[in-house]
């Protein structure tokens, strides 16, 4: 089963609402990176694990500087107040809990807040690209996941138990998909917002764990 939902940019927009003035934020590869388009005007500082705080917007054309990239290997810019530092300082601040909000993509999230993102068993390799994901989860004060609600062929990515290798266990706070906004609470998954037009049966049909319905359930607000 597969439903029409928000485009990726709009998932990013909705997730960006969880970021507030004064936050230090790290954005993972994929949909999370798109969030940087939606925080203009907010008093927020982006950290890139390559060794940079106050990462500026993407660079294009003549502004591209080969010594200045973000952790997704995109050309970026610096801003007044940017700082560069080495990699052990960067991961010191990540593990040390200095990121207020971390947003990651995922292959699967479980009802316990476990999440899988670093290795797709379908690739047939027992090694994979861990990158900074596990460190970011270990140090996150607030871990948000942004992703498509289902796989391309409509299989649930929100599951009872991970079948993919875990990146971290019990760390996810909120899940933002094209179809819903879900909070991970001790009792399970709390459905808070739903894509306009979808029924509770619809969303449950593409979500493996039984969802707890928020008394304040509303349509996804953009």
């Amino acid at each position, binding site marked *: 089963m597969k439903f029409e939902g928000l485009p990726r940019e709009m998932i990013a927009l909705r997730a960006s609402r969880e970021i507030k003035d004064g936050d230090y934020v790290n954005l993972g590869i994929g949909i999370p990176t798109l969030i940087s388009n939606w925080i203009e005007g907010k008093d927020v500082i982006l950290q890139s694990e390559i060794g940079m705080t106050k990462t500026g917007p993407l660079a294009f054309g003549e502004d591209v500087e*080969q*010594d200045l990239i973000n952790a997704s290997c995109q050309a970026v810019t610096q801003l007044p107040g940017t700082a*560069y530092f*080495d990699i052990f300082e960067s991961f010191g601040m990540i593990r040390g809990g200095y990121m207020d909000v971390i947003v990651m993509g995922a292959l699967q999230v479980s009802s316990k807040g476990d999440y899988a993102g670093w290795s797709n068993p*379908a690739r047939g*390799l027992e090694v994979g690209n*861990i*990158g900074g994901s596990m460190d970011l989860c*270990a140090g996150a004060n607030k871990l948000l996941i942004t992703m498509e609600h289902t796989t391309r062929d409509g299989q649930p990515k929100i599951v009872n138990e991970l079948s993919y*290798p875990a990146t971290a266990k019990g760390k996810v706070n909120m899940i933002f998909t094209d179809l819903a906004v879900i909070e991970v609470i001790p009792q399970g998954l709390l459905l808070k917002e739903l894509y306009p037009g979808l029924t509770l049966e619809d969303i449950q049909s593409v979500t493996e764990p039984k969802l707890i319905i928020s008394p304040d359930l509303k349509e996804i607000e953009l």
Partner: protein
Amino acid sequence: MDKVWNSVEEAISDVEDGATVAIPGFFAAGVPRILLRALIAKGVKNLILACGCGPLLGASEELELLVKNRQVKKVIDSYALYRSASKGMQDSFEQAVRSGEIELEVYPMGTLAEKYRAGGAGIPAFYTPTGAGSVVEESIVTNIVENRKEKETRIFDGKKYVLEYALKTDFAFIHASMGDREGNLRYRMTSRNFNHVMATAGKITIAEVENLVEPGEIAPDDVHTPGIYVQRVVKVPRLTFAITID
């Protein structure tokens, strides 16, 4: 204490078969490409390349030659494979990993950074929260089954941590924007990444520098890597390279 060598060839002349060489760089940024090319030209074999975050994806032409020449025995990294599985299937490095010809040992990036830092700083082992709850806590993650050495975990204040060990290398190849004759270095922007920490972890650290200056030209408060960590300095041209990876 003049540490300047005339050429990269001379500077790496004692890198022998089986050496472990630290290769900094974060994808395309800060990779010691010219030292890598000298390593290819030298043709030494059975190398262990200790990386941080995909410098060989960033320097893909160099990687292809290293694989083609069968110079690499093992790569240590946090992000060594193409993101795209289909592109990966056509990549000669990934093929060599799949066949077991090259070992790929994988760590979380921050753990790897800390392993080099510990190696340079005389810390034999440390505990980290990173990887607890994943396969990383169980054993070394590698494609070579017999090298999956078990790891230890320990609970501090109710939370689980993984014991990880220091990593020192025989050589470290460093790319710096500026270096003085005594080995004090400065990096530009995000090309700093793993360069400083690997300079501390290498038993012999060789820096290729885009700008070679006299001692004192780097202000003492502005040194990124003190020269004490650097045994050899070589002047190299500034290369232009693409920064995209797949």
